[in-house]
């Protein structure tokens, strides 16, 4: 059944992707802390335990390392595991199974074995949650060979990328952001895929190229809309995947506009924004007409108090300011 105008919010789009994949493929299972609790995972896991039972929807003790490793091990043994960490900060306990094991597995075993697991990590921010409940760690994962990293910004992409991540033969880090969960979008009921490694042009324009992903894509869209009212047409690319990067879509746009602004929801040093800047300078330097601008978090932990938290996170206004500086 297809109803193109049906609206779903971000969490329910993920829920539908997981449910449809579990209905289609018996080897798919979900494991992680809080999968039975909306307090942890919102509406993303609604009805899954009821439909598939506790053998395939496994709520776990607080043991991030062992549980993440178990998901990797199950995938090595032929399952398709989705392991969820409702707060990405806690996944630092599980870097060994993700980085040492899953990411290296296919290479270090000479292609004789693989670990097709989905690490679904949710970024939490704001609300005075402070340094250990607010981190965006996507650039750390993007650094590691053997991992693919996706970061959708819309419910439509969330469903399609979750389906693609589960179908992928390699380990995928699926990072989303609790601030995205308020968004609603037309989401087709049938199962579909968004290809991993492909960005999308959300707004065409000639004034400058704005590249973003995940939550910052929402702020970017607001910035683009506001600038449009002022008669400034910015070309806006939502990357959707940050590893492998869709360099073609970025280069094509920068060749047209000559100006690049990147809005990345994490710290500036060693960021995806830094990587994109380097790639553009390395490969199409001659097309640049202005310095590249990066809108990132300052190199500081997330604060608690609202007075400083409010300036810590970047918004559409910071993006507009950065764009205007190079127009």
């Amino acid at each position, binding site marked *: 059944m297809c109803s193109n105008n049906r609206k779903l919010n971000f969490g329910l789009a993920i829920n539908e992707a997981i449910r449809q994949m579990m209905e289609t493929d018996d080897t798919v299972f979900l494991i992680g802390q809080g999968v039975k609790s909306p307090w942890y995972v919102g509406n993303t896991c609604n009805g899954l335990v009821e439909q598939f039972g506790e053998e395939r929807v496994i709520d776990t003790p607080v043991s991030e390392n062992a549980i993440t490793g178990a998901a990797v091990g199950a995938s090595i043994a032929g*399952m398709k595991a989705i392991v969820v960490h409702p707060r990405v900060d806690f996944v630092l306990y599980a870097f060994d*199974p993700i980085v040492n094991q899953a990411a290296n597995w296919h290479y270090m075993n000479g292609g004789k074995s693989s670990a097709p697991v989905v690490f679904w990590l949710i970024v939490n921010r704001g609300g005075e949650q402070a340094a250990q409940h607010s981190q965006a760690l996507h650039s750390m994962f993007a650094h590691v060979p053997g991992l693919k990293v996706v970061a959708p910004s819309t419910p439509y992409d969330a469903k399609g990328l979750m389906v693609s991540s589960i179908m992928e033969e390699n380990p995928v880090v699926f990072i989303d952001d609790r601030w995205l969960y308020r968004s609603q979008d037309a989401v087709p009921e049938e199962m579909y895929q968004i290809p991993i490694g492909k960005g999308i042009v959300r707004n065409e324009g000639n004034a400058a190229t704005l590249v973003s992903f995940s939550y910052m894509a929402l702020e970017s869209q607001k910035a683009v809309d506001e600038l449009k009212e002022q008669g400034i047409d910015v070309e806006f690319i939502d990357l959707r995947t940050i590893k492998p990067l869709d360099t073609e879509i970025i280069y094509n746009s920068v060749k047209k506009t000559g100006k690049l602004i990147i809005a990345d929801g994490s710290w500036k040093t060693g960021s995806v924004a830094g990587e994109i800047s380097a790639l553009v300078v390395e490969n199409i330097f001659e097309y640049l007409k202005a310095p590249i601008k990066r809108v990132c978090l300052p190199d500081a932990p997330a604060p608690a108090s609202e007075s400083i938290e409010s300036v810590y996170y970047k918004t559409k206004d910071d993006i507009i300011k950065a764009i205007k500086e190079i127009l």
Partner: protein
Amino acid sequence: MTYSKDFLEKLYWMMLRIRMCEESLVDPILKGEIKTPCHLYSGQEAVATGVGAALEQKDYVFGNHRSHGHYLAKGGDMTAMIAEIYGKEAGCSRGRGGSMHLISPENGVMGIVPIVSGTISLALGSALSIKIKKEDKVTVSFFGDGATGEGVLYESLNFASLKKLPIIFACENNLYSTHLPINEIRTNRNIFNIANPFEIETYRVDGNNVLEVYETAQKAVESCRSGKGPVFIEFLTYRFRGHVGPDDNIQGTHTDIRPKDEIEAWLKKDPLTQFKKYLIENNISTEIDFEQIQNKVEAEVNAANDFAKNSPKPNKEDLCKYVFK
């Protein structure tokens, strides 16, 4: 228990294969022909052999840095292993893994890595997969006494017990984690007791007695297959070589602080010598039988080494092959 001559000689054959294979690597390591760090299994053969004999081809094992023996005893091909150690394209991991990343999925050798405790959670997950798919398989997770210092072991014991997973936690206690004797890493030497708080059935056995290893492993395998959940076994054993390489003392820095009399006492408990004595004293095998086994193993080890030395290394243009499937 009584066993057939054929079965008992197979155990001896496997232990000798592991020993001779390991010892055949000593010279090439010292000459620099083998560069990958080799943590030789000499001295611990009875553990891998006894456990391997209790498993079927479909069952899984996960290993660690010292896993040449686990790989061979579970059915891994010796030629592919030695080729891997020589860094050759014909190696079991196509020269990308080296000594510490051996694999043979068709024989259930599912993964071997040197991160201490690194495969315990992977083994846990494979056991979870067995349970979800309702398969009649068992997973063995091999780790050393050093792994008892890693938190993931305890997380895994808890989860395995909670979900009654078919996994055997096989701890080879060779009394040293790299250079540190066990007294310097724990207040209590009774490792097998760590399974008790998790309500996991646990045993301690003489890891140099292949029959004792086999019988306990078989009991554990049966328990796992019948759905009773995990089993923990501590094997008391000793490595005859250095932590890495033939002898830590020869490699420039004196890292092996094991007392001479301790080494000598354990050499007297050599699992191969002990088992040979048992087979002779019980009138099971004769010197002629041993000679035949020896000749067969020698021929296999020589052929494997010859093949490995003469086969090609990976092509330079294939550097980034296999990053992704």
